[in-house]
């Protein structure tokens, strides 16, 4: 890939211009995300750089948007809802998804193709269509739960959104866990059984530790799917289930406060942490399976 010493002038020019082009594309990929960060410290209520900011004048910077985020009840409600909905949805999709992935990875599963297609479908169907279908179905489900079961309205609202988000996260769990199970050595479970371990013990003491990286990264995918989801929650939830993305969406559409940028920065930091975790897990999983870490 390096430039050979005998390269002609044309080749040199191409080599460097190609690097520049690639650099520009990387700039295109990263710049929008990076731009948000300094702007979130803007002392003015603008969405752009003020002259004070460009002069690096401390007066041009402030934490007021962050302060607004942590004190404004609207944003706090959204934050609280996101932190309620996403973890519960993740727990549901991970626990059901891991079991099913183990079942799917066994030999001789009847109708494997059809089952797989059904389980993957929430990822395939565009969100707007899932949201439309869920809008019709979940409103009657909600009425039934409120009317027949006599449940509290707010509680039913959370149940609806959590169920919807859990099912959206399932394909990611299935895909990552089945991928991990492909490299799982079956003789280990047989060895455990041979030594007297029951199926439950084998699962928790032998299989689970080995596939844990896959399960966790599937769970992270499911979490981010729910945490980042806005279309379905807009259609299925009501105002009291307003999540962070929903609040951001309203803010962007009606153009209110630059607090959105502060939230965006916080979310970018969270996604960097998640990305690092997934990357570390992937390497650990490959090491465990005896592959060279990429």
């Amino acid at each position, binding site marked *: *890939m390096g430039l050979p010493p005998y390269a002609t002038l044309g*080749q040199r020019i191409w080599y460097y211009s190609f690097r520049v082009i*690639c650099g520009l*594309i990387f700039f*295109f*990929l*990263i710049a*929008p995300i990076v731009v948000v960060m300094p*702007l979130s410290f803007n002392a003015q209520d603008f*969405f752009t*750089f003020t002259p004070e900011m460009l002069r690096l004048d401390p007066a041009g910077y402030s934490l007021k948007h962050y302060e607004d985020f942590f004190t404004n009840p609207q944003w706090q409600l959204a934050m609280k809802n996101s932190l309620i909905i996403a973890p519960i949805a993740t727990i549901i999709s991970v626990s*059901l*998804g891991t*079991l*099913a992935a183990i*079942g*799917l990875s*066994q*030999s001789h*599963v009847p109708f494997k193709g059809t089952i*797989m*297609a059904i*389980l*993957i*479908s*929430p990822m*395939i*169907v*565009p*969100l*707007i*269509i899932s949201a*439309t*279908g*869920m*809008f*019709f179905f979940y409103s009657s489900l909600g009425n039934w739960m409120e009317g027949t079961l006599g449940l509290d309205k707010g509680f039913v609202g959370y149940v609806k959104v959590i169920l*919807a988000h859990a*099912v959206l996260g*399932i394909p*990611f769990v299935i*895909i990552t866990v089945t*991928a991990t199970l492909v490299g799982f050595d079956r003789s280990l479970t047989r060895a455990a059984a041979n030594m007297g371990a029951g199926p439950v013990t084998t699962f928790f003491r032998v299989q689970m530790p080995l596939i844990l990286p896959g399960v966790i*990264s599937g769970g992270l995918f499911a979490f*981010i799917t729910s945490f*980042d989801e806005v*279309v379905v929650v807009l259609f299925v939830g009501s105002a009291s289930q307003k999540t962070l*993305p929903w609040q*951001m969406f309203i803010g*962007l*559409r009606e153009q209110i406060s630059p607090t959105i940028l502060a939230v*965006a920065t916080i*979310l*970018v930091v969270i*996604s*960097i942490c998640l*990305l690092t975790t*997934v990357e570390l897990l*992937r390497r650990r999983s490959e090491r465990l399976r005896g592959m060279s870490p*990429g």
Partner: protein
Amino acid sequence: MAEAMLAADGTPLKRSLARALRRQKLRALGLIAPLLLFVLITFIVPIASMLFRSVENEIVSNTLPYTVESLASWDADQDTLPSEDTYQAMFFDMFVAAEAKRHTRLGTRLNYETTGLSSLFRQSGRKLDDIADISYKPLEDLDGAWDEGETWYALMNARDGADTALMATQRARIARLTDTETNGVVNFAPDAEVAALLPLAAREYTAWAIFVATQDGRDPATRDPWEAVAPALLIDLQSADLGGYDGPHADLLRAAQAANLPVPNFTDAFADVDKDWGNPEPWATIQTHSGKYTGGYFLNAVDAQKTADGMAWQPENKQILITLFGRTIWMSVLIMCSCILLGYPIAWLLANLPMRQANLLLILVLLPFWTSLLVRTSAWKVMLQQQGVINDVLVWIGLVADDNRLIIINNQFGTIVSMTHILLPFMILPMYSVMQTIQPSYLRAAKSLGATNWTAFWRVYFPQSIPGIGAGSILVFILAIGYYITPEIVGGTKGVFISNRIAYHISSSLNWGLAAALGTILLAAVLILYWAYDKIVGIDNVKLG
């Protein structure tokens, strides 16, 4: 003959194996079953209910059951008005619907097909009392007893035998009309003898009794019935033979029959309410859309309409949905192409750099992939605004005058740029994984055989990278045509997709049937593309991160 092989416990080996296999299958299914059920209930059923809603059309026959029945024999092509019987059925259907406040809903539904029906239904609903009064006032003047609810109750309520069939059909009528259960206790049952003698009055009184008992929770014995029972009674009395009747209020009935009180001419009365009822057009619309299932929403979704003479296209300048479908596909193709253009060099670079550097650069691709969609969309809103970062930079450099800033948001350009950015990782990652498998020695071999750099790339490397391009393209295209959030925020009016229209019909115009039909069409397109993706790439090769 050889003995059958036996397993350790003495059963034939074959049977033992089959049993073990069956147990294994059952265990696998047992592990999958909870999730499968969960997905079926929380996802597949909702999607199926959406598909159903796109063809479901029970509202017309639920709201106007007798009119639909009566209209069945009417021929819309003959340019004549429906018969007086149809107008009469319409009056009683509408009267109940207006009391249940359901006539405006039907008006809204039929307004999708013929403009103006919404206001026609709304206004007619208010004036039905005037028609009823043509009979009600004279009846009341004849004998004040007709003004008392108790008179009617005594006349109609069952004595010797109740007409249970009539009761059941009217319960079902009110249930379908109001979308509620009507199985509750009703302190009334129509008398079989009166129901045979005065069928229309018994029918309407029963419907009223069920309505007040189940919807308002009141006792029909003490309430005054709707005015519509008066014209119903007088119509019945025109032909009823009261000779053998000796039940309650027999003399009242005989007096009313002898007085020969006026019965409204419903055809004229409706024309007085609104002259549109004197045209065949609203009737043709009702007749055309009276079926329980309809393809009408699908026709609407492609800018066509179901009329009495079959299908008709909207005029060219009103074909917004076809335009929108076209724009969705066209813009998705543009986004896909710009993703290929931008993604190919990056994927090539990543695949050809040493592992350590490639991994570092890969993070620059994965970071946007992992960043919240809303964050990226808000970033683009910040960048593209007229007072935004890009315009500021251009003004600062001097490329653009301050009073002439570029308009790059709320149009197609804004949507394409931001969606290219958002979907680019989905193009780069499949391309990268394919390019990793291409042996660099092939390129060297081509060059040693005398190929120029370009020939070696175009004839040797590029054909091998096509599967990556195909996989990435289909993935990006599928994701693009269903996008909602980004076009909604940066697309303005010119840069929105069909999904924004679906959301509009769900939350603003409340034309849910049309939204479902649009969704079904979009779903079909996506499924076909996925099927192609599965054939070309294989769903199992979907990799994350």
